[in-house]
């Protein structure tokens, strides 16, 4: 008995070490994965209402470390009859293809001539992104969601949302937890490890044009650290209701090297956001399921100090404290599927590494989404989004198209999408983003005559995974 326990503990520590090592050695939202279907023998509908939104079973599959497997295993044991290998005979691999057409309300100025309307207004991207997945079991308690994406816009191959997990079951009768899941996750995007679709990494819109005009401000936890951080954390899922997680994120700038090896240099010329030390991330959620309904209330957040320039961890930092609440509701009928998610993120942002007008600023983000699907075939979603905050003329500076004339970060609008799924693994969609406010104003927001509605974007896409 004892030896089994210590064997397990030793394995857990070894795994934590290995995953850490793997991450220190390692861009766009991901989706449902055919690899999981290949491994479990389950159709997509077991884990997804409509991909990539997860069903209650899909959430448990993830919390269990992606290890359920119903295919033949390659196995090995040692003299003590302890398992030393339990690997799928067939690798759970999949491919994903996204192709799209984007049309912006009013084209952005031509860089070369500075003349409006000369730049391209409509763009076709085939593919917009092409990804390779390894998603599934590595051994009995260890699984992975690994995605590598080729992005033709930048003609680069990069690590996309990735998550390596160890999970097991245990019980502590003393606190009434007769069977709970505990696990360790190593991932590269805060909230990508989350199992609900109301937190930023896996929320609607699941796919967006990559040539939209981007707003001037987003909260740090709202995608700003995606694929440039590595987080290691532990979680528990207890009483079939309660999720608790605590993680720490470290900067993990990929694709850089140093002067003496090849590749771009991670030195004083580097100007991306880097976390100073370790940024704590926390998550608590309560889920209540009854009949075909599932309701969750939760909170998550993060505190990070960041460097914006150069290397090393000396010098002034910017400080971000994000506190968020969220909720999700799902009704999963045989024919009718209804989902609603909402989140509110409050950020306190203090900039010491760059010059600002105010000593500190706030930024509030709200997203409320509703979606309906019939027969998992046809449906749509509607989202209201809003980012508002204190005005700061230096932080949110002027600039054609991407700047703000009045120093306000306020951006608001809706995103509507209609989808048709001829097969469970293929989505054809039409999406429209309409802004009522962009970078602080509805009209002439950049001081060069551009209106918020000029950034409205029509986006038509094909998204398939096989």
């Amino acid at each position, binding site marked *: 008995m004892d030896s089994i*326990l210590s064997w397990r503990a030793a394995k857990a520590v070894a795994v934590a070490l290995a995953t850490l090592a793997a991450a220190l050695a390692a861009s766009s939202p991901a989706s449902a994965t055919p690899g999981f279907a290949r491994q479990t023998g389950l159709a997509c509908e077991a884990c997804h209402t409509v991909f990539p939104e997860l069903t209650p079973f899909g959430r448990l599959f993830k919390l*269990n470390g992606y290890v359920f497997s119903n295919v033949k295993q390659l196995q090995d044991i040692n003299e003590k009859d302890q398992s030393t290998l339990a690997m799928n005979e067939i690798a759970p691999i999949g491919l994903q293809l996204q192709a799209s057409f984007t049309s912006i309300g009013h084209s952005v100025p031509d860089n070369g001539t500075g003349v409006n309307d000369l730049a391209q207004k409509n763009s076709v991207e085939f593919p917009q992104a092409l990804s390779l997945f390894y998603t599934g079991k590595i051994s009995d308690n260890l699984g992975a969601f690994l995605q590598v994406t080729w992005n033709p816009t930048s003609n680069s191959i990069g690590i996309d949302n990735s998550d390596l997990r160890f999970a*097991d079951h245990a*019980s502590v009768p003393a606190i009434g937890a*007769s069977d709970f899941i505990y696990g360790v996750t190593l991932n590269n995007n805060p909230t990508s490890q989350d199992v609900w679709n109301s937190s930023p990494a896996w929320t609607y819109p699941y796919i967006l044009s990559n040539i939209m005009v981007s707003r001037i401000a987003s909260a740090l936890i709202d995608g700003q650290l995606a694929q440039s951080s590595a987080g290691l954390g532990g979680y528990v899922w207890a009483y079939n209701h309660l999720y608790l997680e605590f993680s720490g994120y470290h900067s993990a700038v990929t694709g850089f090297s140093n002067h003496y090896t090849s590749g771009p240099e991670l030195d004083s010329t580097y100007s991306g956001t880097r976390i100073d030390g*370790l940024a704590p991330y926390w998550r608590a959620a309560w889920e209540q399921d009854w*009949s075909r309904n599932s309701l969750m209330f939760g909170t998550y957040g993060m505190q990070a100090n960041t460097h914006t320039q150069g290397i090393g961890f000396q010098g002034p930092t910017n400080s971000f404290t994000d506190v968020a609440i969220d909720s999700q509701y799902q009704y*999963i009928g045989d024919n009718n599927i209804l989902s609603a998610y909402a989140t509110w993120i409050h950020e306190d942002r203090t900039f010491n590494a760059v010059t600002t007008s105010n000593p500190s600023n706030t930024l509030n983000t709200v997203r409320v989404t509703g979606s309906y699907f019939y027969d998992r075939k046809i449906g749509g979603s509607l989202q209201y989004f809003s980012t508002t905050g204190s005005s700061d003329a230096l932080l949110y500076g002027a600039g054609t198209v991407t700047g703000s004339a009045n120093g306000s970060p306020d951006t608001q609008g809706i995103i509507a999408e209609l989808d048709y799924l001829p097969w469970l693994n293929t989505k054809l969609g039409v999406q429209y983003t309409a802004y009522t406010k962009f970078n602080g104003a509805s009209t002439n927001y950049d001081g060069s005559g551009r209106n918020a509605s000029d950034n409205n974007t029509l986006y038509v896409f094909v998204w398939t995974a096989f």
Partner: protein
Amino acid sequence: MNAHASALAIACLLLAAPAAAAAEATGAAPDLVQRECSTCHGLHGISTAPTFPNLAAQPAAYLEAQLKAFRDHSRADPHAQAFMWGMAAQLTDAKIKEIAEYFSKQPPAPGTSADPAEVAAGRQIFENGIDAQGVPACMACHGDKAQGNEVFPRLAGQHRGYIEKQLEAFASNLRENEIMHQNATKLTARQISDVAAFLSSM
């Protein structure tokens, strides 16, 4: 600061406590049930959503027969294919026996209340059949308390939505079973709904 070391320390801390408590399957549930089946059917065979049938107190012989039917694909209604073909693919006969034993010994699901008029109409069908339509009393095979016996499944306390879906699948032959096909084709949608209301309330 040495961030990696502290991250590792966090991980070890988090791991050490539950791992020590993981007292290696003290419960009677077979490991596979705890890890996999329970996520849809509940640890004790009582599930939340009507898509997933309750398995608690289901006769072992029936459970065995169904798991084998999923494994050899002879039970082929849409949800059987989407969910259970995969789950049953690698089960050995011995494993099937063990799982069936386990679920058959779990206390049955308590019924859920339904509209009294529907329940009364459903009880009538269950106990007496419908002579005019040539429908036999369900009780004759499924037991006077719908408790099941051997290959005749327990129906008492089963989810209403699941029962309705199975009767429709028997009628359309998506789930092939000659006896139940005969019974189900003779029932109207209203009668299916009533009998399901009664059974789920038991």
